[in-house]
């Protein structure tokens, strides 16, 4: 299936970078994961340390456990998991779930009730830093809960599940909304004797999260001297906030260039950026991030909150004031629009990729064990972010895989963990997502895609997809079905300089934001119906393997090819246009859910249940694959190439440092990996 393109030396950071070339599938994985070229994870989710509904450990249990949870509810068996909870502070003890989760024996518990007690092997003796609230409102700063509660939970669960668990953050960025961040340096949760710590992650949160206004942080002596002095606690808003956010990106790039990522999330939700508030992003802010952090700021994330859609929209937690006025095929307009903001960044040749995660908080009207949700899905239930399986998989491989661009994002298990998306000209020198194919003008470029449509997803509904009923298709919601794949191409015209007039582009809230074109050359170059793909049935358990190849002719200009697929045919009323582009998802609620099995929690209009909440999410399913870049021989290297080379050089330097310091590795391995 995969050509064996390279010999891979698993020695350190640079080795995992090479994995983007693809080794044989047979070399990967262990147990049931053996043979899967990609592994599924989630990097954005919440617990009661901030605004989630369940305990930190409970989220992990449901996300990576197998079978059923002990108190009921399905587990979702993810291969890796990053705990990506807000910055700031929280008053609840996150060793307990909230009462609203309806879990046996669990009631909302605050830090004020548990100080000094040893619970789950962890004793919190005091709330540290600047006093923040009193009584049941007494809050723990997140730098403390990252260090003293969440990371010990990660260590505990790592041993229990033998999976890759990472302590991350949903950074409440100065000047903007939210950003997924992880700093894996120091985290060795699988190491029995020295499991390390999440201090670097906590330090980032303390220094740069605008909701963390603590002015003290951890102290190093009885005199109160600070461990992390010099915090900017002033410039948290608007343009000054953006500059502080950039300082955060630069801090990561300078200190943890291969051990961190910074990925803005639900980027359209709060509308355009404001120079005087904290909201949104325009294209210039993503350009700033990528310029400041070429190996750490390499993409954006889809919205999450996929079951929030109601009769007036709201899917992805996007209201009418979001850029675009809502989601489109469960993605924000920046990524859903052909020629939109993402295509604008790719049109510069930037290493800028997209990712998906759950943004799990709660199930809305349901408790944590209910099969339905009117708000969020549990990690692994609906969304899966796939990164390359590196065999002896580690947290470093998660970061490397994301950075490489060799990843894809799937909703509703539309496709499985073994997608192949690659291109070549001659011989067997395939290039995959995130890589660049160098061609001679006039050459034939062969593009191949292989994907498996699983037999089942996690939907609790077996009635037919109500969005497809009007076009005469009977497709049970719990049986994934692919209608077609789009191959989207766009020209690459070079990096836009910060002083160029088109570096900043005017943005707009609402549906006006959906009309902004950032890359007019982007187009759906090929649409391949699933009915025209080679089809191989893989038995009742594994679904259907689909394969197609198509060709392009190399021109004299660089370009990229990205892919998306969906269960929605072109021109489906209230769902897609005649070219196959997703419409504003609020339109889905124009369709009634008329099957007798349509659940009671759907929104109603004049007594008719509408396609909303989790039924909408399972009805309107998409996947997105990151781009393959193509440039003519002799043309300047693209930014995606030079930034990959930068990462490679940094990895080699880390290797050399590692070799040099090998004698005291255990004490100085902040910049290396989990070896387990």
């Amino acid at each position, binding site marked *: 299936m995969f050509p064996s393109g390279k010999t891979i030396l698993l020695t350190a950071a640079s080795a995992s970078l090479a994995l983007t070339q693809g080794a044989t599938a047979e070399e990967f994985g262990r147990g049931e994961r053996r043979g899967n070229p990609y592994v599924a994870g989630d990097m954005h989710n919440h617990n009661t340390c*901030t*605004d989630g*509904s369940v305990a930190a450990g409970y989220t992990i249990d449901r996300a990576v456990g197998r079978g059923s949870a002990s108190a*009921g509810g399905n587990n979702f068996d993810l291969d890796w998991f990053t705990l990506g909870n*807000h910055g*700031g*502070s*929280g*008053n*609840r003890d996150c060793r307990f779930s*909230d*009462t*609203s989760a*309806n*879990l*046996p*024996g669990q*009631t*909302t518990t*605050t830090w004020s009730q548990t100080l000094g007690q040893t619970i789950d092997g962890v004793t919190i003796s005091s709330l540290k830093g*600047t*006093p*923040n*609230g*009193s*009584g*049941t*409102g*007494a*809050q723990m700063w997140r730098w403390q809960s990252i260090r003293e509660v969440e990371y010990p939970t990660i260590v505990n669960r790592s041993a229990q599940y033998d999976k890759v668990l990472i302590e991350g953050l949903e950074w*409440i960025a100065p000047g903007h909304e939210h950003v997924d961040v992880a700093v894996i340096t120091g985290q060795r949760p699988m190491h029995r004797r020295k499991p390390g710590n999440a201090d670097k992650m906590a330090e980032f949160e303390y220094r740069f999260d605008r*909701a963390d*206004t603590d002015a003290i942080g951890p102290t190093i002596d009885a005199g109160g001297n600070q461990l992390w002095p010099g915090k900017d*606690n002033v410039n*948290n*808003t*608007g343009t000054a906030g953006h500059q502080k956010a950039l300082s955060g990106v630069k801090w990561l790039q300078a200190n943890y260039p291969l051990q961190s990522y910074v990925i803005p999330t639900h980027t359209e939700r*709060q509308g355009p950026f*404001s120079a*005087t*508030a*904290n909201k949104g992003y325009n294209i210039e802010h993503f350009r700033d991030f990528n310029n400041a952090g070429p190996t750490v700021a390499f993409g954006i994330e889809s919205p999450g909150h996929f079951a929030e859609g109601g*009769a*007036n929209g*709201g899917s992805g937690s996007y*209201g009418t004031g979001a850029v675009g006025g809502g989601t489109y095929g469960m993605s924000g307009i920046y990524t859903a629009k052909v020629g939109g903001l993402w295509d604008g960044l790719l049109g510069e040749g930037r290493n800028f990729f997209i990712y998906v995660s759950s943004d799990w*908080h*709660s199930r809305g*009207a*349901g*408790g944590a*064990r*209910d099969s339905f949700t*009117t708000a969020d899905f549990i990690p692994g239930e609906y969304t899966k972010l796939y990164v390359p399986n590196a065999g002896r998989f580690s947290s470093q491989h998660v970061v490397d895989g994301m950075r490489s661009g060799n990843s894809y994002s799937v909703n509703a298990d539309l496709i499985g963990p073994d997608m192949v998306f690659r291109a070549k000209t001659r011989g067997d020198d395939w290039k995959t997502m995130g890589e660049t194919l160098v061609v001679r003008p006039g050459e034939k470029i062969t593009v191949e895609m292989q994907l498996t449509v699983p037999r089942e997803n996690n939907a609790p509904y077996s009635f037919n997809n109500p969005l497809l009923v009007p076009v005469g298709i009977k497709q049970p919601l719990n049986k994934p079905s692919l209608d077609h794949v789009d191959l989207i191409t766009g020209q690459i015209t070079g990096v836009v300089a910060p002083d160029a007039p088109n570096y900043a582009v005017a943005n707009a809230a609402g549906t006006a934001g959906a009309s902004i074109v950032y890359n007019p050359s982007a187009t759906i170059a090929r649409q391949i119906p699933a009915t025209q793909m080679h089809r191989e049935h893989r038995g009742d358990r594994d679904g259907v393997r689909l394969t197609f190849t198509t060709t392009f002719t190399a021109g004299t200009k660089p370009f990229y090819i990205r892919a998306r697929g969906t269960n929605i045919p072109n021109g489906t009323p209230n769902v897609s246009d005649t070219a196959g582009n997703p419409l504003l998802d609020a339109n889905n609620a124009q369709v009634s859910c008329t099957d007798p099995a349509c659940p*009671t*929690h759907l*929104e*109603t209009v004049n*007594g008719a*249940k509408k396609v909303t909440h989790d039924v909408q999410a399972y009805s309107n399913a998409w996947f997105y694959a990151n781009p393959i870049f193509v440039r003519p021989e002799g043309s300047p290297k693209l930014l995606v190439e030079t930034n990959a080379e930068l990462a490679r050089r940094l990895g080699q330097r880390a290797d050399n440092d590692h070799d040099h310091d090998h004698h005291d590795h255990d004490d100085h391995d902040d910049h290396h990996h989990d070896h387990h």
Partner: protein
Amino acid sequence: MYLFRITICAFGLLAVLGSAMAAPASEEPTREDCNAAVAEARALAAALPPDHLSRYFAERHLHQALVEAGNGEFDECIDMAARASDEVRERRHELLPGEKLKVLGAHE
């Protein structure tokens, strides 16, 4: 009734949140803004019959609004309160005759 019992203790628990955090910038919502929005939405919800499905949904939104406040995210608090108000005004969720929303209780 069970559907509403599950939110009551959390409301009480979170209502007393104090704050020593730095004052947000002028355009940013404050705790007072959040509390006012929650109070307004709660009054709207209370006008619905106790067994109306939209009242249940609204109270779940209000619970989350207070959770957001507990995290210092007052903009999200106000957003959740607005959802609660919209839920009540538009009666977005209604049970059809003979229907019941089944939510697993903590004791089940």
